């Protein structure tokens, strides 16, 4: 015999149906392949960038001096290059001048001779550097050093420096943690938006199938919303498991070639656990908002109209949290933590930068409360302002979604 279902049991009925249906749908394959596209596009774009950079000519320092000076300058370059490294510009000889021969450096630069960005002329004792203001300011020192070396005025003996390499410095660690925080936030944001969009289209499809009235008659709308949210969350965990396995597989094959992020302040295992929890919260927050929107909209166009500002707002919240990463403890960070929609991102960044764990408990409680309020509000909106029918749906002066939104609050007498 049938018995009364609690809200959670009713939500489970919805979640079970949705989970199975989504898992066996074609859209789940696209969902699984989803992260592959940014990776492929990123890899492709990166490859192209590298090729472009490699193909681009590097600016070189042109030399037009008498033969003896050129030889001395070359020897000086060979002596300094191992110590100075990249600070020395690449050097090319444009012309070995005869005694008394003049060289028009400005004309040579205008003619773009040998890709020279600046040209050194004159003598070793009085070198003259011609080029753009920025370039000559940058190369003035190296040219002077080369000339000094060529004249034999440089130190003859360089003391050996003993090296003590450390895994990281405080500054490097902080920088690394910021990188980890940003990477975590970005991953969280992309996943959340992907899922929220899916839960929204799922609800719209349900309205299209006209199932929603059967669901709403049988169980409270809160349970419908909860079930839908948790079904999609479960689907996402399956996706994450698949992606993590794939990444693990690649990591095993590629070994050290795989990019690794610096360790977060709370350590990797806790950070990953918190990341999953904050992902769930971020998704539940935006998902419940989208469900409330979806429950009011009857067409895909209406959904798009209303969800677009919500999506933009979500980007703003993400940017707020991203900005707060660089200013831990600031007012910005506290605002990002307090605003429910940016709170998961801000708190994940905090986990990367601070080892304290108790603030996360408080954040979870706050975010869970907001999720509950959003679900309750969405369900209430549905019960009071949606499901118009027949003449009831067609008679008001104002029609459509905005009329529904602007309708006066309802006095519930029951």
């Amino acid at each position, binding site marked *: *015999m*049938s*018995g*009364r*279902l609690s809200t959670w*049991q*009713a939500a489970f*009925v919805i979640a079970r*149906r949705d989970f199975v*249906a989504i898992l066996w*749908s074609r859209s789940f394959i696209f969902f699984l392949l989803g992260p592959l596209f940014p990776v492929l596009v990123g890899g492709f774009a990166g490859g192209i960038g590298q090729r472009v950079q490699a193909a681009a000519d590097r600016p070189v320092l042109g030399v037009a001096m008498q033969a003896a000076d050129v030889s001395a300058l070359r020897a000086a370059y060979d002596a300094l290059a191992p110590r100075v490294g990249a600070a020395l510009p690449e050097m090319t000889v444009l012309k070995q001048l005869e005694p008394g021969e003049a060289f028009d450096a400005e004309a040579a630069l205008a003619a773009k001779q040998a890709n020279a960005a600046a040209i050194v002329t004159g003598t070793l004792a009085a070198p003259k550097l011609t080029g753009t203001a920025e370039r000559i300011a940058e190369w003035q020192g190296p040219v002077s050093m080369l000339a000094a070396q060529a004249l034999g005025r440089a130190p003859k003996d360089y003391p050996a420096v003993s090296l003590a390499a450390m895994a990281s410095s405080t500054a490097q660690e902080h920088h690394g943690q910021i990188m980890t925080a940003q990477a975590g936030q970005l991953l969280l944001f992309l996943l959340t938006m992907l899922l929220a969009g899916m839960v929204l289209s799922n609800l719209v499809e349900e309205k299209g*199938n*006209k*199932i*929603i*009235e*059967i*669901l*709403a*008659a*049988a*169980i*409270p709308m809160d349970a419908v919303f909860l079930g839908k949210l948790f079904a999609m969350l479960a689907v996402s965990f399956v996706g994450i498991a698949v992606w993590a396995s794939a990444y693990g597989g690649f990591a095993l094959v590629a070994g050290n070639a795989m990019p690794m992020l610096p360790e977060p302040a709370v350590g990797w295992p806790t950070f990953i656990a918190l990341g999953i929890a904050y992902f769930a919260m971020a998704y539940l927050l935006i998902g419940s908002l989208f469900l409330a929107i979806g429950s009011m909209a009857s067409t895909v166009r209406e959904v798009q109209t209303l969800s677009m500002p919500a999506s933009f707002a979500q980007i703003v919240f993400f940017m707020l949290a991203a900005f707060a990463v660089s200013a831990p403890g600031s007012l910005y960070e506290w605002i990002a933590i307090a605003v429910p929609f940016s709170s998961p991102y801000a708190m994940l960044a905090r986990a990367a930068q601070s080892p304290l764990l108790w603030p996360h408990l408080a954040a979870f409680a706050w975010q869970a409360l907001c999720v509950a309020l959003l679900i309750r509000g969405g369900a209430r909106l549905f*019960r*009071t*302002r*949606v*499901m*118009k*029918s*027949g*003449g*009831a*749906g*067609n*008679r*008001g*002066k*104002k*029609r459509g979604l905005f*009329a*529904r939104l602007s*309708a006066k609050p*309802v*006095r*519930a*007498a*029951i």
Partner: protein
Amino acid sequence: MAGNESGMATRPLAIEARGLVKRFDGFTAVDGVDLTVGEGAIYGILGPNGAGKTTTLRMLLGIIDPDEGMRRILGAERPHDVAHTIGYLPEERGLYPSMKAYEAIAFIGALRGLPLAEGRRRGKALLEEHGLGYAIDRQIRQLSKGMAQQVQLLGTLVHEPRLVVFDEPFSGLDAINQGKLEVMIRALAAKGTTVIFSTHVIAHAERLCDEVAIIAGGKVPFAGPVDVARDRIRPQVRLETRVQDGLWRKALPADARHEGNYWLFSLPESGVEPLLRALIEGEAGILSLSIERAGLHDAFVHIAGEAAARALEETQAEELAR
């Protein structure tokens, strides 16, 4: 607002609603509806499109909240508390297209608290029982509209509800399936299940219902037994006499009119016997005399008014055109 004129006040109530009001964007869709439906009754809500039938049912089921008023369903003030004892077939039928027929039935049952395995077992049995055994493993998208409608109907009943609510159940069905549905509704009531349905087809309500609520413009001008509705109009007398004039004419009421060979008039309050006596004693020479009780259609026109009756006819015409 007419009160409930139920002759079945002694039955325990399956539904009790007082002063239900629902407004949408300033438009009052339902305006102070009172309903009482006894357990085991077949109850019809009769009215044209836009009269407020669906909104009333949705409020009774807790799909939407009323702005004012109270409702009590099977003794519960919150309909979802007794959802496991209610079956509901909405006007806009819908199922998941990718679900198999028996799974769709089991899912609707699961929403009402029926364990999924039991729902699947019952789903298969119900499909077999109703001649749809061949469709058990077919996906809903592979079924015709009528078959899908039947699957949903079976889903409405799979958990053996105490109260079944149908919103325009005959809409979209052919005559044969309408007949089958009428049989099913009677069978449900015979088992003690309360059935409440909305319709714009008077004939269905007249054939099936113990009681009706006539709804027009969001108001219920009449709610009670069908016989009481029909008795709102005096029976019509059709009299043919051999003698055209005489003292007996004084026994006819003032509204009597002569059409062809017949006198047509409402049966006087005093009943048929004094009339007959006057006709015989006055030597009218009665050739024929018939007394016709008013139908529900006439009662509807009388109670709801000409405009509502026209709207009802338009609704029926629209559906026929579809």
